[in-house]
């Protein structure tokens, strides 16, 4: 594999404190340098992204007195993709008195991540989770409550305690609106300057420090230079590299990728989460996939016909000709096995030719038994809005006919490498939320991304970035600073290039083709042969893109095709790194399943002796293979075991 990458020095998290795990976060906070409130006014921070991770950080740093400049590509910060999260947010409140604790949430998350995350980070996340709920309630987030007026909880994603707080099926929306309102309060107070419809296209690094960004005003096309003492990327995940995913249409890797090209290491890019319960693809015009909340698996039963090619109406298929395969293979967890396992099992039965619906890419999620057991009104009360959404999209009535579901790309555990302070390998560049790689290892548990986004933004970053800013303010810069000038020039040159190719193929046609390659070879199951083929095809496609893409119009206007072209160009580079990462990790763990590494009965097989590390990749010049830096992972508190859900 020497042709595809080289190995460099190992990397260490220098900021991680030691000592008893429960005291590490206190220790780090105490050790971090503080900034005198009077000096904060003199320090500026750029925050790119206004999802949970970005909006919460902007509001909190604004309140603390720093000068914050925020960016998002949508027309309002309230529309960041966090808005779409449905199920809920975890917190170790133990309001249910069911044996939950900070330690148990920590344990579940490390195990759920299949032992590829850091114990210190995960422990801190669990500690902070408690404060998140308090903060959100104080802001007016209308969580579900019981008749006594106290907060309701549910169990989620196969854990045995009820620690998930929720706001009907719209938890992300309500949490984001809370953070958005706090952000707008700071805009009114003059501590945060908000730039909507602005896309970050380059990072400015001066004397080894992140000092600003180049952003394009998406209405006028103006290429703007913004400086600050520190830059925070809270730009979300890169699932759209697969074209079809549950992400919003605009989700992208550009901000992270540009930072990567400027020296920030990219960690575990191949760790992707594929969610088992999404509405299947209906045709090749399909632009995105819709998630159906995982909570449906609490009462719905998943099955396919026993016989291949059985295309009878599902209601006509008798019980003994149905295969409730999750209940059969995993008798103790049944339909509630973790996401990665449920997804792969669905793929396997479809590969056997037993899939249902158009193209045979679907399995049934059947509520007939639940309706019999609970009565239709109870099912309606619990899942009514999801059933309505399903019916709106598919035109089928799930009370009558079983739903069809299929796995879809949902979340990316990989992201820019950060230390315990959430600082990347470029001093002054911090990364929060889904954009970093930090807390979920090789697989994320349900309701933990919202927790991480808000933990990072409200509580972690505001207590670590001060350690860096205490050395500021740094030297004043202007647009003639060579590094800034060079960054702006490169952005202009790239845009000019995209507009001048005037080829035959639309941006979307390239994006779709890339998505097919990634889904086929770097999706739910990966192997050496396929990944090598994928790398070859991605290179060819990237080459064709730069020769043959058609982007009409000019830069000096709102130009959605141009925006998309820039994002797809970066996906075409990221995709190759994902495949290299997947190829080098010759083990199965969490969402990463290598067909060469499985147990006799087809379960994922980890190789802790060889792969218990974070793979952090360094960009080298175009055409040169990337350099791998390994961060060894050690487990002092949770014993490393193979997961078993049988």
């Amino acid at each position, binding site marked *: 594999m020497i042709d595809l990458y080289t190995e460099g020095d190992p990397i260490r998290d220098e900021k991680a404190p030691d000592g008893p795990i429960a005291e590490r976060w206190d220790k780090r906070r105490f050790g971090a340098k503080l900034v005198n409130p009077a000096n904060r006014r003199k320090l500026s921070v750029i925050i790119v992204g206004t999802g949970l991770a970005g909006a919460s950080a902007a509001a*909190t740093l604004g*309140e603390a007195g720093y000068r914050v400049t925020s960016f998002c590509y*949508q*027309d*309002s910060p*309230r*529309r960041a*993709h966090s808005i*779409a999260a449905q199920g809920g947010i975890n917190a170790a409140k133990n309001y249910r008195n069911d044996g939950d604790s900070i330690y148990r949430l920590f344990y579940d998350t490390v195990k759920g991540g299949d032992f590829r995350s850091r114990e210190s980070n995960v422990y801190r996340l669990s500690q902070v989770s408690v404060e998140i*709920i308090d*903060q*959100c*309630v*104080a*802001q*007016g987030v*209308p*969580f*579900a*409550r019981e*008749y*006594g*007026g*106290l*907060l309701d909880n549910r169990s989620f994603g196969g854990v045995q305690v009820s620690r998930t707080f929720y706001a009907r099926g719209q938890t992300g*929306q309500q949490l984001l*609106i809370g953070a*958005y*309102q*706090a952000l*707008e*309060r700071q*805009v*009114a107070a003059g501590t945060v300057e*908000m730039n*909507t419809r602005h896309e970050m296209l380059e990072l400015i690094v001066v004397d080894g420090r992140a000092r600003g960004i180049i952003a394009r005003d998406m209405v006028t096309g103006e290429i703007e230079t913004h400086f600050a003492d520190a830059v925070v990327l809270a730009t979300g995940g890169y699932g759209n590299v697969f074209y079809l995913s549950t992400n*919003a249409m*605009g989700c992208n890797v550009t901000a992270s990728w540009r930072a990567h090209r400027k020296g920030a290491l990219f960690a575990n890019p191949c760790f992707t989460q594929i969610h088992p319960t999404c509405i299947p693809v*209906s*045709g090749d*015009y*399909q*632009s995105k996939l*819709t*998630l159906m909340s995982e909570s449906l698996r609490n009462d719905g039963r998943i099955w396919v016909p026993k016989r291949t090619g059985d295309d009878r109406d599902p209601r006509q298929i008798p019980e003994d000709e149905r295969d409730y395969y999750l209940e059969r293979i995993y008798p103790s967890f049944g339909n509630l096995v973790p996401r990665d396992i449920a997804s792969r099992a669905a793929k396997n039965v479809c590969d056997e030719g037993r899939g249902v619906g158009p193209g045979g890419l679907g399995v049934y999620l059947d509520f007939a038994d639940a309706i019999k057991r609970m009565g239709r009104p109870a099912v309606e009360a619990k899942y009514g809005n999801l059933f309505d*959404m399903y019916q*709106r*999209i*598919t*035109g089928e009535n799930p009370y009558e006919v079983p739903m069809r579901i299929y796995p879809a790309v949902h979340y990316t555990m990989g992201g820019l490498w950060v230390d315990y302070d959430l600082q990347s390998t470029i001093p002054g560049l911090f990364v929060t939320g889904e954009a970093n790689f930090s807390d979920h290892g090789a697989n994320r548990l349900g309701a933990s991304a919202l927790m991480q986004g808000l933990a990072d933004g409200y509580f972690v970053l*505001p207590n670590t970035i001060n350690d860096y800013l205490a050395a500021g303010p740094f030297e004043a810069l202007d647009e003639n600073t060579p590094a800034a000038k060079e960054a702006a020039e490169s952005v202009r040159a790239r845009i000019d290039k995209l507009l001048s190719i005037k080829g035959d193929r*639309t941006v*979307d*046609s390239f994006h779709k083709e890339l998505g097919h390659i990634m889904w086929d070879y770097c999706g739910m199951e990966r192997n050496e042969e396929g990944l090598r083929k994928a790398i070859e095809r991605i290179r060819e496609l990237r080459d064709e893109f730069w020769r043959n893409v*058609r982007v*009409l*119009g000019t830069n000096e*206007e*709102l130009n*959605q095709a141009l925006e998309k072209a820039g994002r797809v160009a970066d996906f075409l580079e990221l995709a190759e790194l994902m495949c290299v990462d997947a190829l080098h990790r010759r083990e199965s763990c969490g969402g990463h399943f290598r067909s060469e590494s499985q147990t006799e009965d087809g379960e994922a097989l980890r190789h802790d002796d060889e792969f218990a590390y974070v793979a952090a990749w360094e960009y080298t010049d175009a055409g040169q293979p990337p350099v791998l830096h390994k961060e060894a992972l050690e487990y002092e508190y949770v014993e490393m075991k193979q997961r078993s859900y049988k």
Partner: protein
Amino acid sequence: MNITLRVWRQKGPDDKGRMVTYQVPDVSPDMSFLEMLDVLNEKLQLEGEEPVAFDHDCREGICGACGVVIDGEAHGPETTTTCQLHMRSFKDGDTITVEPWRAKAFPVIKDLVVDRGAFDRIIQAGGYISAPTGTAPDAHAMPVPKADADRAFDAATCIGCGACVAACPNASGMLFTAAKVTHLGMLPQGQPERQARVIKMVNQHDEEDFGGCTNIGECAAVCPKGIPLDTISQLNRDLLGALASGRTE
């Protein structure tokens, strides 16, 4: 299905704009309305014509980015967002007219894209509870009666799409404003700022060139999230109460 589209094309804020007719063949009833526009845009680009610009992001009816007027109705014939409208709501051979939101407070940027920044400024004026990070008491310190929490939630589901403004003959933004006033006003945490909030938000609403509310109800009829009209009554009661107690801000 074969569809004829009449689409508003406008190059920029200063362009006069005009309706242009396009044919979209082979439309599947399972396509969403925006996927049908994607198909049109692919075709236009291959023919050398610039694609039609429209706002969208989540395509699941929750971010509030999408929204166009379809045959005279905000978000089209079903009570849902434009992204969740599917072509099975139309017939083969239909001619469909597509226009941007039309309101003084929402100037057109290009084609079907408008500037809804006025909504953010209404929130800035007072659509929040002042609770700086780190100051919160335990979440169970203040129980909230379930009925109040539910009403707060219902109002809080507003996605800020602007259909209410587009549908209102006065182009009023009162339903949007009232949804936020109701959400925060129903919660105990929202009480200290309740009077100041309603005055500041309504003042900002009026400064933004939205029209006044004359209780026509078109807003609630098109609202994809079912924000009820009685939130506006609640806003009016709060406003009267605040003014009667002598507050101006």
